[in-house]
């Protein structure tokens, strides 16, 4: 890890700790105060981030970017229906492994800070279209209307899963993952969908 990346990661971690301790709304945390708490010069923070919002946006994007790369590569390499099925399952596993300990704070920020809301909306649109492609490939033979409806259900389930995983420890995330994947499978096996 390069030195400046280490410094950036340190700032993120300490900022999250400080926010958690303060028990205040995120927007009330001022940058100068943060620099004081971290005991580093103010301009060392602004070298990487311009605001608290930027720190959260950076974290949100970091996870999204990694998952998006994983899905794009996986989709490109998926030759069979089983490959696509496996891709969806592994995507959820990769996702929970990527979530940092402070993902509950990032989750909260994505509901309020404007840039984070924007990123959340962008990511949701992306996941919707990529899930649709995976479902089409992994569970072939569905008509378009069914494919759309099932994609919406998988998408909303994924966001419920995200909310849960963001607030529990790594062990609990893994426990629910197996049941979650089984349930999604059960749902998608229903070819005609009621």
């Amino acid at each position: 890890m390069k030195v400046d990346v280490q410094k950036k990661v340190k700032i993120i971690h300490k900022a999250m700790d400080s926010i958690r301790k303060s028990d205040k709304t995120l927007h009330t945390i001022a940058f100068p105060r943060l620099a004081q708490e971290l005991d580093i010069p103010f301009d060392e923070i602004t070298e990487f981030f311009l605001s608290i919002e930027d720190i959260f946006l950076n974290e949100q994007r970091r996870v999204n970017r990694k998952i998006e790369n994983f899905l794009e590569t996986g989709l490109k390499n998926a030759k069979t229906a089983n490959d696509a099925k496996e891709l969806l399952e592994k995507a959820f596993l990769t996702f929970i492994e990527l979530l940092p300990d402070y993902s509950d704070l990032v989750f909260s920020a994505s509901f309020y800070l404007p840039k984070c809301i924007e990123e959340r909306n962008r990511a949701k649109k992306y996941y919707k279209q990529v899930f649709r492609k995976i479902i089409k490939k992994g569970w072939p033979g569905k008509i378009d209307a069914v494919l759309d409806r099932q994609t919406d259900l998988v998408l909303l389930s994924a966001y419920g899963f995200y909310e849960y995983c963001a607030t529990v420890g790594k062990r609990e995330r893994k426990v629910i993952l197996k049941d979650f994947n089984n349930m999604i499978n059960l749902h998608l096996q229903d070819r005609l969908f009621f």
Partner: protein
Amino acid sequence: MNTSTSNLKDKVVKRAVNSLRKSKRIEQLSFVAIANELNVRVDEIQAFYTTTEDIFLEAQKKDWESLHRYWDRHIKKSKTPGDFKNAFEIFFERFVETLSDDADLRLELSCYLPKCIKYREKNRERVKQKLKNLIKRGWPGKDEKVLARQTELVTVLFYGFVDHVVHIPKTERTKILRDFRNMLNLHLQDRKFF
């Protein structure tokens, strides 16, 4: 609470939400501005709320308490597995029916403001306990472990559903509700659960 008090509180919530929709910043909300817009004295508003965060907390509590009361009435009347299944479904139906026009903003604040997050977490546990009771009696014969895992999944999915429905138009909400309920049913019919 008399009608005029209740009316004033409703008006305060409406003004606060409108203002937030325009400014996107909770720190720009003020009792003085709301009082001026409603043509009432500031102390009349301060009689109910200590901070602007309280406005949203009270609104959140009011919505959920009303939903719980409705739900409890149906649970209390239930005698057979069919009745309990019905009470289970009624919860989701009523939730969608009673969503306000500004449900998206209210959800965002409930995921962001510290007091609202605390209430949300507490309420999530309350919802989970009731769902567990209904699953146990509506789909009898499950062992404790299965019951706990299935309840957790249903709760996870419900919160994903909440996030989804508040961000789509009212007409589409009932459509996805049907699919969502069917998905849960399919999941709960699996008595041994893998």
